[in-house]
């Protein structure tokens, strides 16, 4: 019983060991010529601006919730598909296929109802912020800017 956790321990040790080995090896093999560009944070090719701990817009929150919902659905669907396609299990009982299919349909149906609910409630609409135009009237004519630029 407890011995089965040996696999977990072996997994942890092997994983840590492999990473340590590869990183140490790479340290000896690779050339080491740092510069400012290389040491900066990689941000999809953009120059990073400001702190990484920014506040996320609460509008993303609903999307995150819906995402988690369907993520969980997928996580359950994959093992279900493996069991569902098992020929031995299907041969063992006559109703097996119908039962398993129906069960998954109920599960997806409830999630679908959840999505429909969010849709009807209007949570899928992206709420645009109402930006008010500046009513500042500049004494400088626009032509002057064009000339300057």
């Amino acid at each position, binding site marked *: 019983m*407890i011995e089965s956790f040996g696999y977990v321990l072996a997994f942890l040790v092997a994983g840590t060991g492999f990473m340590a080995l590869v990183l140490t090896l790479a340290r000896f093999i690779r050339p080491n010529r740092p510069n400012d560009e290389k040491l900066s944070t990689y941000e999809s090719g953009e120059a990073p601006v400001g702190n990484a701990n920014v506040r996320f817009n609460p509008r993303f929150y609903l999307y995150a919730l819906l995402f988690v919902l369907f993520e969980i659905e997928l996580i359950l669907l994959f093992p279900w598909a493996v069991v569902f396609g098992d020929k031995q299990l299907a041969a063992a009982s006559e109703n097996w296929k119908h039962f398993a299919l129906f069960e998954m349909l109920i599960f997806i149906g409830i999630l679908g109802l959840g999505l429909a609910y969010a849709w009807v409630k209007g949570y899928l609409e992206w709420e645009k912020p109402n930006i008010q135009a500046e009513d500042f009237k500049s004494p400088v004519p626009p032509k002057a800017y064009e000339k300057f630029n």
Partner: protein
Amino acid sequence: MTPVIALSLFGIINLFLGFTFKRQSLQVVTLLFIICSMALTAMDWNHEYLWFGDMMKTNNLSINFSLIIQLAGLLVVAFSNGFGKDEVYTQPAEYYAILLFSLVGALLMVSFQNLIMLFVGLEILSVAMYVLTGSDKRNLRSNEAALKYFLMGSFATGFLLFGIALVYGSTRSLYISGILYNLSHTAPESLPSFLYAGIILMGIGLLFKISAAPFHFWTPDVYEGAPTIFTMFMSTVVKTAGFAAIYHILDVTFGGFQKNWIITVYFITIITLILGNISAAYQQSAKRMLAFSSISHAGYMLLTVCANQPSTSSNILYYSLAYTLATAVSFAVLMVVAEYQTGRTEKPENFDALNGLAKNNPSLAFAFTVALLSLAGIPLTAGFWGKFFVFTDMFNKNLTYPIIIAVLMSAVGIYYYFKGIISVYFNSGEIEKIETSFLFKIALWSACIGTLVLGIYPTLLKSIF
């Protein structure tokens, strides 16, 4: 089995009915749903069967608990008044749906046969309660209460899970029957010592939910911050379901290991009684007083869990029923008075806000008095017999010292419950006639009459349990 499926379906239906129905009709529909699932529950009477892969079990005890829980849900929905006049910020369809879903969680907690189902039921109930606690979105106190409840509640759930893991590690089964089988076929010396740690950790997780003393710090803040109607739900449904689970874990499953957990639970019981009652006596706010009173009632119910007599389950049932009826009525009266007093006084939930209620609202005052008398344990009310049965259990087990403390503490209880009665009847104040809806009146009177009938004929229900 059927009520769990029915309540889940009703909850989903309720969500969609909210798009078309008016709020008053939603209330009636939800009442019908709960009555329907109560009927489905009662239909299983005297049928004992396992379901859902042998992970759940329906028997008469679980049916009784389910009925009390659904009765509490019924009272809460009837008292809710369709969530008032605030048309913009309240969402009754969602509230009712979440209430129904949390009832599903409570039903799982009273009929589990597998520790995983206990965990799932507890989580369904708790997550619904976190949401309902914070449902008054514009109220800062409600938000604070929801966050506190969520953080501390999820921490306590962690304790419960760790306990389940340790028990599984030492008994090689998550099924109650499997645990009992393995425990009886293993010599006590060869059991790993972390089994005992597991039992205590599971106990801590559950004792948190019923707000027993060292784990009670969230209770007053959460009960005060939450909207009163959901405080009523929290203090009745969660407590009943929690005690059903505690009884099942400590007395049924690990009753044979009583000597390993009994001292801890004794200690917790005695602190719960002392802290709950003494702090309640100091409160100015009636709502906060009721929160501390719910802590002290958890202490009384824990007494009978400690005694572990054959009559324990029926005593917990009787006490939960008496407590549910009385608490629902007292919160309901407090709710309508606080609604009336909002804007008129600084603190609408204080005892002072109740001053002079009896003058123009004799029926509300009478119901409030009966409820408080029942909570205090005065004869001719249900609360008296609840306490009486609990003390009898302790007496049969020869546990004199806890009884002495419990009796002393119920004397303290009389002081703070009578504070409410005095402000209703004897203090002078100006409260006009408060209009309540028809359903509210029916629920108020039936709960009141139930309290009195149970107090006069306790054998009426004792013969069924």
